[in-house]
């Protein structure tokens, strides 16, 4: 079954700032539909009064990563697209993956060492003889 990696979305904006207009429109129009379409994501809307920091959309994932995206001077549709993009992501860091594969047990028959293909007399220690 698919488990959505996004835990909660926090919408921090100020109700009076000019660049938070898109955020306010999103809250009025599209936030309810978004919350209904993604039932396993909790959407928190926290307006802070007065002039404060820039409006931000904070996404918290199940592995603890917190990702903040600026939504200043963005339209409501753009914020919806941003929110769906964050909802479809997982919380892993967005860096270059060095290899597309990974194993915890790379060797089943035992990794090669210089004594694998040598006669076993070199490796095996027989029972020690008692000094007589």
């Amino acid at each position, binding site marked *: 079954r698919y488990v959505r990696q996004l835990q909660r979305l926090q919408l921090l904006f100020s109700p009076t700032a000019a660049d938070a207009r898109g955020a306010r429109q999103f809250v009025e129009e599209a936030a309810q539909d978004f919350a209904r379409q993604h039932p396993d994501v909790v959407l928190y809307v926290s307006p802070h009064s007065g002039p404060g920091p820039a409006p931000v959309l904070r996404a918290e994932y199940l592995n603890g990563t917190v990702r903040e995206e600026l939504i200043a001077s963005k339209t409501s549709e753009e914020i919806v697209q941003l929110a769906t993009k964050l909802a479809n992501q997982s919380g892993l860091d967005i860096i270059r993956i060095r290899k597309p594969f990974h194993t915890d047990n790379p060797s*089943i028959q*035992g*990794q*090669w060492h210089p004594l*694998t*293909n040598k006669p076993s007399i070199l490796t095996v220690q027989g029972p020690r003889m008692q000094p007589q």
Partner: protein
Amino acid sequence: MVVLSAARWVRSRLTDRFWRVQEVLKYARHFRGRKNRCYRLAVRSVRRAFVRSTKARREKKRFLRALWITRIEAASLEHGLKYPAFISNLLKSQVELNRKVLADLAIYEPKTFKSLAALAQRRRQEGFLAALGDGKEPEGIFSRIVHHH
């Protein structure tokens, strides 16, 4: 009063020079000397580094293939076979494993590699018999070819 363009005596100042410089310097942080600090030197070094990294992608393929061949050669010599004999006999027995997989098997699965070397050796002997014997002996078992249609 509608103003469509700014007046001529109004000039705009460059305000994000810091970030434009940091965009280049972030790729030069692990360089040696003043190239990792001074923008003028870093621009040239970063550009050369990028050019070299794009050109090196073609050579990486050659380099890795040579590495795999060295490893397979070493592993097959441990089992008494030379690399050309090993590869050619493996292909004749319709075992189409590439060098990357063969090198990984030689490192992580030594017993499998030993059996592949034994297969190549057996096919080699059958090839010699078929070429030198020219008699009424039946064809070798491992020389049979399977046709997939």
